[in-house]
Every structure is written in C-alpha cells, then in structure tokens.
C-alpha cells in the first residue's frame, strides 16, 4: 500500500494531485488547475481547465480576459475529479471568492487553505474550519511578532490623521484585490460617508465587488476631478503607485499603507510610509496557531511564508508538521 497522502505531491510549482492529474494554485499553465483565490501568485492565466469559486473565476476573467474551460464550484459544493478524488470548496475569509479546498481520496482528507484569515471581513464570508487529516496552511505572518490589531482602531487612526491634516490628501496604498475593498467597507462601517477616490488600477475590481453585492458607497475615479480638489480626501491606490510619479501630482499627500507588514517599523520605513496601517487579509500568529489547534489535523503542512517559526510552534506543541518548498508565492499582502 502506498504511504499515507502520497497521492498529493508538493512540487516546486504547486501541489500536484497525482490520481486526478490536477494542480492546486500552479505557478505555470497546466491542463487542470484548482485555484483557491484570485491573487495573481495563486491564480495564473493560461490553464486548459480552471476549477474555482464563481467569484474567483470572475476575478480571473477580469485579469486575463475570458477564461476558457472555467468550471465554477460554490462554497460547500464538491466536484469529482478523475482517479477517485473529490474536491470541495469552503470559505477561507481571505478575499472575495477565496476558498479552502478539501480533497478526499482513499479515505484520507486534506485541506489546502490557500490564504486565509479569521477576522470578520464585510467583503467575504468567514473562514470555516473543516475537519481533516492533513492541514496545508499558509504562514505569511508566521512569526509571533505579528499580531494584527483590530481593524476598527486602524481605520480610526486614518480618520484622525485626516482631521489633523485637513489640507493634505490621504493617500492609502492597498492591494487592489481584497484589501482596497475591505478598507472602503470598513470606512463605511465607521460612518465615513464622503466619496472615496480610486486610482485607475482599482476601479474595475471595485465594480466587480459591487456586482457581487458588496456595497462600497460612492466611489470616484481620481482622473475625473482636478487634483487640487483631492486635498482632505481619501484616495486609494496600489502600493506600487505610492512612490511613483503619479502620487507626486496629488496635493501634499500623506502616505499611508494598509498591510500586515506595517507592524514592523523598518518595513514601513522601507516603503517611505508616513502613516502605517496594520491591516492584513492573512491570519496573524495567534490566528494561525489557534486555527491549527482548532482544526487539530494529524499533520500540518506549511506552504509559504515564515515556515520556520510555525514549524517550531508545532514541534513545541507536539504536532507533526513539515514545510513544503513551493516557489512562486510572493510575500504578498502589500
């Protein structure tokens, strides 16, 4: 008999489901791909067949044009793959459409989380723990220094800075998929009713969120107003735009950035950020360790991020664990 879980093979370019001849989040085009969520390092274009949630497929279609061979599977639904493998999708709480994929084969259950978080997020359904033998977890913020504060406090700091500097444009760097919409939704929840201005690269994704029923209030493209009118307004842009020429045309911008990395001062300084906002769509250290304890798998596999520390935690807590050397996933969340 084959050793346990040998039907799921970590390869450098992704997890390979041997009997189904299918890949999870592969880094290069393949015949059959299961995709956990729409971020570019997990969802690449060019697969012959892509199996994902409807929202993830819509995000991929927006990014790569039409997705031929798209197969939608909703939350809680499953699909039978060749070779006797069943795959089902469960909310991961990371971004719109993000899913954990439960694989069942030969009586063994493996959950691949993709990226996830445990905090409430008005833009996507919350993470659901799924019982399994092997839990394949991310570890982007897998160091005990990472403890994300409540998002309400970070939004309050942004609004307080805006009050303090009425003449300055509040420029917030936020990942275009997920982070931006969450920040906007949280601003609305905090009672901020003014229009939020968007860098051109964010407009289509925000519209897609609205199409999926996420209310974001009044949004305006930056391009539609004279730059001088942006003093005192909140403008969202991708992190890469914070330091390029585009941002220099704004009236005295106060540079903020919404990212879990902002917890570390020097990381914020590296990005030339004046107002670091610790907002992350990934599980922090406490969420990672609490989730492993809650799911209580026989084995924990750690994909990408700071796997050394999470491995150590598993060892200290007498949990069987291993690190998978997958390449291609970036230090995202910025």
């Amino acid at each position: 008999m084959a050793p346990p879980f040998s039907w799921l093979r970590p390869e450098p370019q992704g997890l390979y489901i041997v009997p189904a001849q299918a890949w999870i989040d592969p880094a290069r085009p393949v015949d059959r791909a299961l995709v956990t969520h729409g971020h570019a390092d997990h969802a690449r274009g060019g697969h012959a067949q892509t199996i994902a949630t409807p929202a993830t497929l819509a995000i991929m279609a927006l990014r790569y044009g039409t997705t031929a061979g798209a197969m939608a599977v909703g939350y809680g639904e499953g699909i039978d793959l060749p070779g006797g493998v069943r795959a089902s999708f469960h909310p991961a709480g990371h971004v719109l459409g993000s899913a954990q994929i439960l694989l069942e084969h030969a009586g063994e259950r493996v959950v691949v989380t993709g990226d996830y978080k445990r905090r409430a997020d008005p833009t996507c359904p919350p993470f659901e723990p799924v019982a399994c033998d092997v839990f394949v977890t991310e570890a982007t913020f897998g160091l005990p220094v990472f403890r994300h504060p409540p998002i309400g406090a970070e939004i309050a700091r942004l609004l307080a800075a805006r009050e303090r500097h009425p003449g300055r444009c509040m420029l917030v760097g936020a990942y275009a998929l997920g982070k931006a919409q969450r920040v906007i939704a949280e601003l609305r929840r905090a009672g901020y009713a003014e229009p939020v201005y968007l860098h051109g690269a964010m407009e289509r994704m925000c519209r897609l969120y609205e199409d999926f029923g996420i209310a974001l209030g009044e949004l305006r493209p930056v391009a539609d107003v004279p730059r001088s009118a942006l003093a005192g307004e909140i403008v969202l842009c991708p992190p890469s735009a914070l330091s390029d020429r585009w941002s220099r045309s704004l009236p005295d911008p106060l540079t903020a950035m919404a990212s879990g990395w902002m917890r570390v001062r020097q990381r914020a300084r590296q990005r030339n950020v004046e107002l670091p906002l610790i907002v992350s769509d990934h599980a922090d250290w406490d969420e990672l360790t609490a989730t492993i304890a809650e799911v209580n798998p026989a084995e924990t596999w750690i994909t990408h991020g700071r796997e050394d520390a999470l491995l150590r935690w598993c060892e200290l807590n007498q949990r069987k664990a291993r690190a998978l050397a997958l390449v291609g996933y970036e230090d995202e969340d910025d």
Partner: protein
Amino acid sequence: MIAFAALVDALVYTRSRNGKLALIAQYLRTTPDPERGWALAALTDGLDFPAVKASAVRTLLMSRVDPLLFQLSRDFVGDTAETASLLWPEPAGPQLPPPRVDEAVAALAAMTRASVQHDLAALLDRLDADGRYALLKLATGAMRLGISARLAKVAFAQAFAVAVEEVEEYWHGQVPPYLPLFDWAANGAPPPSDEDLPLFRPFMLAHPLEDGAAPDLSAYAAEWKWDGIRVQVVCNGQATRVYSRSGDDISASFPEIAAALPVPAVLDGELLVRGSYQGAAEGGAASFNALQQRLGRKTVSRAMLADYPAFVRLYDALIIAGEDLRPFAWEQRRLALEALVPRLDPARFDLSALIPAQSFADLAEIRSGARDAAIEGVMLKRRDSPYVAGRRTGLWYKWKRDPLLADCVLMYAQRGSGKRSSFYSDFTFGCWAGEPDADGLGGSELLPVGKAYFGFTDEELKWLDRYVRQHTVNRFGPVRETDRSLVLEVAFDSIHASKRHKSGLAMRFPRIHRIRADKPAREADRIETLRAQVAD
C-alpha cells in the same frame, strides 16, 4: 513616556529634516522638566545604563518566549528592542500607569545585573507595544532615529527661539536633564557658565575632491590623509579630554593621550596606534586594524596600553594658551602648531608632515604610489583659510586613494539590520585556492576573503536579495549559503595579513563595486592574486 513614545514613532516615519525639527521642538515646548531633558538626552544617544544592555533584553525575552522563536523574530525584524516590544506578552491584571521618562530613567539607572530581569519586566508591563519600543530604545542607547546632536540643538533653538550658536556653546558642559539650559532658553535665566570646562569645539571638515578637479597647489598645502580616527584634544589647564568626530568624550578609552597634554590648548589630529603591526615601520603608525583593538572600550587594560600604544598625529591648532587661533590663516596656525609640538611628549604627539609636491600632477603620482597601511589618501588645505566649523566649499579637500579591485564569488549572505531588515544584505565572498585540475575547477576551493554590506544601489540590493533566496543551498540560522555561482567585483582600500581568517587575509573597507552576473564563478580571482597586494 506616552508622549515620548508618540514622538519616537512620529520621528521614525518622518523623513524631512524640517518635519523632525518641528516634532522635537513641539515636544520640548510642551513637556515639563526634567522629563524633556531626559528625552532630549535619549534622542541624542546621551544615556547609558550599565545593567541594561541588548543582551539583558535578550535574556529576559528568552525567559518568556521560546528562544528559537525569539531568534527567528529578531532575524526578521532586524532590531532586538523592536522584536522584544512586539513579543512581550501582555500582562494579565491591572498595572501601574505608564512611567514618565524621568521615572523610567531613574528606574533604569538603579538596575543592577541581579535586578534587571525583574525590574525591567515590571517597567515593560506598564507600557503598550509603542511604549515598550521607546523604553527599550532609550534603555539600550540605540535610537537610530537619524537625530544627530546637531539636529537636536537646532530643534532646541527652534523650540525656544534662541540662536543655535549659543545653544552649541552652552550645551557641551551640560549633563542631562540640562536644567540650566532649559532655564536659560525657556525662562530667560542667565546662560550656563562654561569657563572651567574642557569643551569640545566643532570640527572643520573636508569635501571629497571631485573627479577631474585639479586645485592650484600654490594656494593649497598637501598632507597625508591618515587612516585613524579624527580627534580633538582639549586641555583647560586642569583637565584634558579627548573628543571624537561626533563630539563624544573618548578620554576613558585613551587615558595615555588624556594624561599627556600639559598645556592649555585645543588641538586637532588623527588618533593612531604605534607599532609594527600590519607591517608599519617600527615606531610608525599601524593600520586601522590595530587601532580597532582600542576603540569602544570603557576601560583599558595595561596589556592593551602596552601592545597598542596610541598617539595623535597633529595637523591643526584651534586654541593655544588661551589664544583663539581659529580666525587666523592655516599657514599661521601651522606655524604655531610647529612651535608647540617640540614641547609635547614625542611618544604621544607628533606632527603630520606636509607633502612637498610642486604640482598637482606630482601630487597625483605621490598619492598613487602610497601604499602605507596607515595612509588613506591625501588632504588639501587652503593656505589662507581660517578654521571654520563644518564643511565649507573650497577650503579643505580629501582625496582618497583609488580602491583596489578583486573578482570574488558570493558564498554566504545574512539579513541586514534597521532599514535593511529582512533583506539579505551582508555578503561574504571568497576567492579560489589550491591547484585547479585539468577541467579548470576541481581541486580548487573557495576561501572567504571578506564581507561587505554596502556599495550597491537599492535596486541592486533587491536583485541580490532575490538571487540569494533562489540560490540557497544551506541555512545556518540567519545565514544562507549560496550555490557559489555569482561573481561580485569587490572594491577595497587595502588588504592585510590576518590570523583570524582561513584565507589569512583581511580587507579594509570592502564594498560591492559591481555585480558581475556575466562572469563565470571559475574565472573569479585566485587567493595568490590578493596575497600579492598585501600592504604589509
């Protein structure tokens, strides 16, 4: 402590000088004595608590957190104080309110090696993460906020609308919390008196000579640029102090110098170590390697004094016997200095010789011929210039020797600190040793010859960081071993024999000059090539 922590945080994220000045000035105006004085001392690294060092913080954390998790966190964050502030477990139950800065300073000063683990923990429990960061930075004396003493003085002047020259003058004799200074600036009290103190005077500094510039040597005197540290020796008739470039009092590290100036004077020169180490002629100046043995020590053993005797090679005089020479031309100051030196102990003071070059072309030739370990290049000083504080265009130039170059192979990389935390930015590189066999490579091995952590641009750093991550073959804690495929062109000022390294070589001032991704590793330089360049 809360206001101070907020100030520290704001300073971390404020790049502009004016922004920093405004933040500090605002804090000084609105914070009462003696808290603001202690805060000011902390910002300018003026505080030292013997029992509270980074090692004590590390030990404390490792008693609360798994040591490996602490180490991995420290490695990522790049700063012990910040790591500790983030990892500190939030205390259960009610705590005392956060301490004021002066309270914290008093508590830190009272700590001993025996009590620090308990007492520091009690202070940390009273603060949130930002407060813990400010406290630990203050306690371990490494704020790294880019606040120079000069900037702090300008902010002080700005806070109370007084002249910065006056602040500089009155500052030096004062100790934290600077009550007389605040009383003078904020309340109009008479200025603190400085007549009895051996005070530091600001240094005159040199501009680098730009490529292609060729000053007229009839207007400039040429001297060697010595590879030691710039010092100012000040005697007021009773006490003598030795000050470093930054104005730090380093008399305790160099007691033999402090004891050797018997006349009231303020002298400018280069601190060097005498000896035949690193091949200097007997009785001459040794290389910087030898001087390094003496730097940063609070107390000096007898053996140190005997093995690495320090002396000062004088090149200027600011004040002699109460007469301020600074307004006089260099030529006149030089005459006064030449008259003074014979009266000083020759074991501790000598005169920096002038270079008799007739023309700039002569000088260029002399400069390129100099490979003395203690010579870094040449200096040009305008003969008619007064001694003015700071860096003034056209008066003094430094002209360093062209660096030596070697093609080395990247062997190990380590993450940097501070701004470069989480980037692989410290690079260890090696050259080939041993006889290569027929196919050119087998039989040879790489021996490390140096380590460099600058010389590259931010873009190149990103490229190198990615290269290291993708070519790692082994990990040793924070160090990654690479597959030895990348050639780095390394520039260095000189190379010396060293027992500390397996290659027997140590580079002075190595930096990454170019990334030679185009060059195969087997074509990098051989150890013998480097050995031939040893200056000893």
